[in-house]
């Protein structure tokens, strides 16, 4: 006797298959969700009669169907996200930089738990969740591991800005570790923003006023009390645009750049003959749009050179 699926099972199965389509499969959970929602907004009504024939909503009430599908997409993405967060916090985050920013103290054991808890809170907030997408992709990738050692080796602008201007006595490995933590914490800056009625705009990258960040800092620092407040401050300030914000720290500028890059990472992208490499292409475009995105153009120049030299 064959089992007839309930509408919720049909929805879940449809969403699961959609998330596993080749165009989405290689993307992180939140980017898959973003793409799927975007697709639904653009084409959903054309699919409505077909969806209704599958038992997903009715042919007349598109809004209700879209709500059901959106909720299921979020549920499915959350399941995937949980695994990604665990991987990011447990495996990708290292606290080797901790003593440098905490006056020589070693990292307490509950730092990771606090970080994971804050990430869950971020993922539950509609605006911060969108910002988490690029951050998580950047943390899970090898971006900082790839670019910081050559920058330290060449001892040019990036190295000078971090070690001499910002006065952080970090080696390249510690700097990479610090940047990953900043990138992961960065979306917390958007926890203060109330979600708008239309989720179509990417408010995750809308600049946040500096005063709002200063007001939010004590509360957020309390949520990750084991981390030095300076780290949380650097993470929050990474959403400020360069050069508009005064004396924006080099690590915050770097965190902003790598988060932007993380947002555009496409692991399954095949580089055609006649095309430049993904990183080199991205940094070159980012150099031209540096002011638009509020990124440091000189850092982008140096990272572009590193990408070109290494064929990335």
């Amino acid at each position, binding site marked *: 006797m064959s089992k007839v699926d309930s509408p919720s099972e049909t929805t879940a199965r*449809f969403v699961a*298959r*959609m998330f596993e*389509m080749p*165009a*989405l499969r290689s993307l992180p959970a939140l980017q898959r969700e973003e*793409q*799927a929602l*975007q*697709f639904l907004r*653009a*084409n959903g009504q*054309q*699919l409505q009669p*077909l*969806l209704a024939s*599958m038992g997903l909503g009715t042919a007349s009430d598109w809004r209700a169907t879209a709500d059901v599908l959106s909720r299921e997409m979020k549920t499915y993405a959350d399941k995937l996200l949980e695994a990604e967060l665990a991987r990011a916090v447990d495996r990708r985050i290292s606290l080797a930089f901790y003593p440098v920013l905490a006056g020589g103290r070693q990292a307490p054991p509950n730092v990771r738990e606090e970080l994971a808890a804050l990430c869950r809170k971020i993922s539950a907030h509609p605006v911060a969740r969108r910002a988490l997408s690029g951050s998580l992709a950047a943390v899970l990738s090898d971006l900082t591991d790839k670019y910081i050692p050559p920058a330290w080796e060449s001892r040019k602008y990036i190295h000078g800005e971090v070690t001499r201007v910002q006065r952080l006595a970090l080696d390249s490995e510690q700097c990479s570790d610090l940047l990953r933590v900043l990138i992961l914490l960065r979306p917390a800056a958007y926890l203060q923003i109330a979600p708008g009625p239309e989720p*179509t*705009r*990417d408010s995750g*990258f809308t600049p946040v006023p500096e005063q709002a960040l200063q007001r939010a800092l004590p509360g957020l620092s309390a949520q990750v009390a084991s981390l030095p407040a300076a780290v949380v401050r650097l993470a929050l300030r990474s959403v400020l645009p360069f050069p508009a914000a005064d004396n924006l720290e080099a690590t915050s500028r770097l965190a902003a750049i790598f988060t932007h890059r993380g947002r*555009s990472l*496409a692991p399954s*992208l095949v*580089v*055609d*003959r*006649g*095309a*430049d*490499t*993904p990183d*080199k*292409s*991205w940094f*070159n*475009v*980012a150099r*031209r*749009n540096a002011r*638009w*995105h509020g990124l440091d153009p000189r850092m982008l120049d140096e990272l572009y050179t590193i990408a070109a030299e290494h064929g990335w």
Partner: protein
Amino acid sequence: MKRIADILESIVVGVILAALVHTFLEDCSILAGWTVAARRWIIWAGLGIDIFFTIEFLTRLYVALTRGEAADYIFRQRGWIDFLASVPLLVFNSLPGVLALLAGAGLATGMGSFLNVLKVIKAVRIARILRLLRVVKLFRSIRYARSPLAQRHVAAITTISVTVLVVTVLAGSLLANLGVLPGLEASFQDAQTARARAVSAPGLDAAARAQLARQTGGLDASLLVVRQAGGKVLWTRHDQSYYENHFIPGEYGYYNLNGVETFFDERPIARAAAREGIVFFVAILLSVLAYLFLYSPRFALGISDPLHVMRRGMKESGYNLEVKIPARSPEDDDVFELARLYNSVFLPLKDRESDAGEQAPALALDDVRSLVEKG
């Protein structure tokens, strides 16, 4: 069905390669003086190949006709090459060659029916050059570049070049055959006619004619046999078995004057033609290889690859790779100028749009629709 079509295409490619090897071997066999037994196999193989390509052409034409696409097949899909490289070769080259073999392979046998065929063979020998068009057919079957634009462009250039070469050589051979452009063959024939007239002079008895033939044979190494019309051999340079083993139809010059038959050795003409054939074959093969391995990558690098990258970048929201512009590309190159604009203007604007949330979704409507339809 597709699998069967692929197998058939592979067989066609295999036979094209075999045909090219056959063309080369046929000329080599003449130059190297292979025995008649070996060359007979080559002639029969040529007939088999020409029959295969004629059947292939007729089949493709029939299929195109049933679909109402005959003109498309002949002109756009280069069916005219299929035609030129099959039917004329079968009718004017390999079939007469085999008929001549069947009519009389030796000098002394089947003479009556053989002589007419001999003339036909000489007249249509020029059709052999059409075989070289098969190089284009082979080229068409190779997937040498990922870009269909590059494939079409290089295939068109190759077809034009090879066709122009073949037609020029064909026209030159025709003119030479008609006597407009006298060559080695014409001077050979003039000399042979003079010798034939001398040994066929009227009023000589058999002994005197034999004596004259011996003297003439001493002066002209191409004179092979002088015999009376009844069949009595007055003088011969070699014994019968030598002719059977070293001459095929078409390699004799034949005269019948005043009841006296004279035969001449025309293998030097055949060798000259074979030498020319090999030179043309190598020239065409090398030009095709040059298009394939020298020009095709240049075309891909300078035209089709940049266009492909730009097309993807404009069509796909998640494809933001820049066009790789060689450091030494000319400033006035339109394609690279366009690529520079694409890199410096289009991609940054696209990046801003995607940042503003106006990016097109990576999923295609048809893919999701098929997902829904599958249930």
